[in-house]
């Protein structure tokens, strides 16, 4: 690791004051410390924000509010999260390992860097790490890479599971700088790589992610996160889906739906066309298959991930069957 100085502020104001160009905020450290060891991140100052009052998991009429420093395991375990937004709990529990979930903060989860092996390998070309150097994944091992939202500059997958559930739920993130506080929809927070894959989100220099809000959605109690991966546990998604269904049980139809996908996109991927194709239809296998059919139609595959569009559709159908029943 390169040398840095270390501050331990006790307030948001002090933390923002400590931040300067080239500094990094430290929460759980599971991304930052890892990437500092690789010398992929070389901050001149590390601002330890763990003493800031950015805690709390609460539910009120405005929805679910989670402080940025809440740990993944605590959010997953929270009774209100489990009962009202099961897909958030499930997405968290299917992420990483118990040790990492105990460490990693919610804010850090949303800001984690891609797990693309070429991004992490300083000896290879990567436009995200070194703009203009090229993308080794285009001609390399691409099994884990994205097929939606890619560009000629970058095909890195967004690695977060819980961000997929949060995008499906229209979650918003709260950002604070010395100049202003603002709130941004998580779906808009993440950028497509385009020609500038090094710019991953809307966070500005010196800005701190302080928390997130999930709007109320009573029928999200019928929701699930399904993750398909090469190993049974402790692995990133090849494809994953977060699905919530509002069922009219008397008529056997779908009133409303939320659908998003992970493991396939350069950012968490909302599937609004799938949602529209479900609404008003019978909760039945034929509906799910028809709704899932166009998913991934616009995918750009690489030699090792040509299976992903079909895997995405199958994952969608399986999750919908589990939530809505076959007929």
């Amino acid at each position, binding site marked *: *690791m390169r040398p840095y*100085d*270390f501050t331990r502020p006790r307030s948001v104001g002090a933390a923002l004051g400590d931040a300067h160009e080239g500094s990094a905020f430290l929460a759980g450290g*599971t991304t930052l*410390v*890892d990437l500092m060891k690789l010398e992929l991140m070389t901050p001149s100052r590390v601002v330890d924000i*763990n003493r800031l009052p950015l805690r709390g998991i609460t539910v009120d009429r405005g929805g679910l509010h989670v402080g940025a420093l809440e740990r993944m395991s605590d959010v997953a375990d929270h009774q209100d999260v489990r009962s009202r937004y099961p897909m958030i709990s499930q997405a968290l529990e299917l992420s*990483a390992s118990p040790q990492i979930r105990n*460490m990693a903060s919610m804010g850090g989860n949303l800001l984690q860097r891609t797990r693309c092996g070429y991004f992490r390998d300083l000896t290879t070309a990567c436009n995200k790490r070194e703009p203009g150097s090229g993308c080794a994944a285009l001609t390399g091992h691409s099994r884990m890479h994205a097929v939606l939202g890619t560009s000629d500059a970058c095909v890195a997958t967004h690695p977060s599971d819980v961000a997929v559930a949060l995008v499906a739920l229209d979650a918003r993130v709260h950002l604070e700088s010395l100049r202003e506080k603002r709130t941004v929809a998580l779906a808009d927070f993440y950028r497509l790589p385009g020609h500038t894959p090094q710019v991953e989100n809307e966070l500005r220099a010196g800005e701190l992610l302080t928390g997130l809000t999930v709007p109320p959605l009573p029928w999200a109690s019928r929701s699930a996160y399904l993750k398909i991966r090469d190993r049974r546990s402790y692995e990133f998604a090849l494809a994953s889906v977060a699905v919530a269904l509002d069922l009219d049980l008397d008529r056997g139809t779908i009133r409303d739906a939320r659908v998003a996908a992970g493991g396939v996109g350069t950012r968490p991927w909302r599937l609004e066309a799938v949602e529209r194709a479900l609404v008003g239809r019978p909760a039945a296998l034929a509906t799910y298959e028809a709704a899932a059919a166009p998913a991934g139609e616009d995918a750009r595959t690489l030699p090792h991930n040509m299976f992903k569009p079909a895997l995405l559709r199958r994952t969608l159908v399986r999750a919908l069957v589990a939530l809505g029943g076959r007929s």
Partner: protein
Amino acid sequence: MPPTDPSRERPRPGPGTSRRQSPGSAGAATAAGAVPTVAENAPTATVESVGENPVEVSLRVNGSRVRMETDPRATLLDTLRDRLALTGTKKGCDRGQCGACTVQVDGRRVLSCLTLAAALDGARVTSIEGLADGDELHPVQQAFIDHDGFQCGFCTPGQIMSAVSLVEEGRTGSDEEIREHMSGNICRCSAYPFIVDAVRSVRGKVG
């Protein structure tokens, strides 16, 4: 890379001394280890570098109070092994992928290789050396011996620390649940079936 980089340094025992005999060392994970005594004001240091921007931290390690200046880059793993001579915690991948370095901080299992010592002011750390009560092994340690829950033993301190936490978390409802919640600890010898046996055997006995 600066010569003082603590993440790259290896322990350098002095001439004629063995790290295993150094003060505060409690021996291997599954050996009957005495509770280590960590000197209050003078932690045994094999790496005497705190870098350019030292940070003072005060924490409890296996019940003993430790006050020290630390390089802000030093991980808890390197601090335990190289400065406090607690070499029971193992460095496997040093990248947060294998779980060999698992310890408890404030009662929760974490990866010491991704934890900065500088961020632990006021924290309570329990490593494998802190489990036994004198010559009496922790039930999870004894269970790993009874069920042959290891082969080479390198991952074992991390496996045991994780298993202790898993039992405390109440995640032992089924073999499937044990496997899922032990998945952060990789065993290259693939002793997994016996590890599950060991964890299952202590269900309800501790926690």
